[in-house]
């Protein structure tokens, strides 16, 4: 019906690559953060954190491969991340929810890509991060990915 939008200019391709890199950086942070949380959180949430950690690893690898396929250099993880000083269960749960919100915002940016394959990736990833927030006991945002989940 509307056809498939294709990136036809260098500017568009550069913007899509930048959005991919931002999403990968968010996934690096999520993998690191969930590793931190899983090592400290109570047994009742440890399996959930480990499950989320694996899902973020999978998306991280997907984004890495997508950048390589575009002949772009995938960014590595940072040397240090801001981690919570409070490692009580509720604080770690909030920290994990914050990781999900950051990745959701990155995927929302990627959803603007002109490439339908990247949009599909972004849409599926945004759904998954929304479901992880619910699994953590968080509330469902009306507009996931937008700042504060609102418009």
């Amino acid at each position, binding site marked *: 019906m509307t056809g498939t939008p294709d990136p036809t200019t260098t500017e568009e391709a550069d913007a899509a690559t930048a959005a991919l890199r931002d999403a990968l950086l968010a996934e690096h942070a999520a993998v690191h953060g969930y590793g931190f949380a899983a090592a400290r959180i109570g047994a009742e949430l440890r399996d959930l954190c480990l499950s989320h950690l694996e899902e973020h690893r999978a998306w991280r690898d997907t984004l890495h491969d997508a950048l390589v396929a575009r002949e772009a250099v995938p960014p590595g993880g940072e040397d240090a991340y801001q981690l919570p000083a409070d490692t009580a269960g509720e604080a770690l749960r909030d920290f994990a929810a914050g990781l999900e919100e950051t990745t959701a915002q990155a995927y929302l940016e990627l959803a*603007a890509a002109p490439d339908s394959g990247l949009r599909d990736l972004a849409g599926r990833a945004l759904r998954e991060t929304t479901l992880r927030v619910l699994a953590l006991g968080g509330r469902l945002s*009306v507009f996931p990915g937008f700042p504060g989940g609102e418009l």
Partner: protein
Amino acid sequence: MRHQAPSRRTVLAGGALAAAVFGVSGCRGSDWYPSEVTPDEYLLRSAIAEKERLVARYTATLDSGTAEDPALYEELRGHHERHLAVLRERLPERDGAEPQASASPGAPPPAAVDRAGLRVAEEAAAANRLRQLGEVTDPALAQLLASVGACEAGHVHLLSEAQP
């Protein structure tokens, strides 16, 4: 650590990616669309018609007195109404008659269904949003559809967990 939230303005209008593709957005034309309706508008109207039926289905279910979890259903209907309002804001203003873009014009109003029926409807809605996301040319509309679809996927999750 990246915790810088983009503003609504950035995401919807000024994002680098949205700006980069802005030049190729707009009407691509098609023989089987009315000439004044772009493919994006047609798709947007379809999404709105679909949302209206979802709201009507929740309303019919709530009004039937047989809803298993009225509080949850009212909350989810409220989400759909919020989505509808934002989708309608994106429609171009028209002086004359509004184009019809319902997938099933003349269809009877949705009937009350049980929790499983609502879940099926939400699953279909979320799947449609993912498809529409790949079809629109406007990057800001693509972002909105991605976000709405994620919320609908959340509805499926909540309806799967709700206890009768």
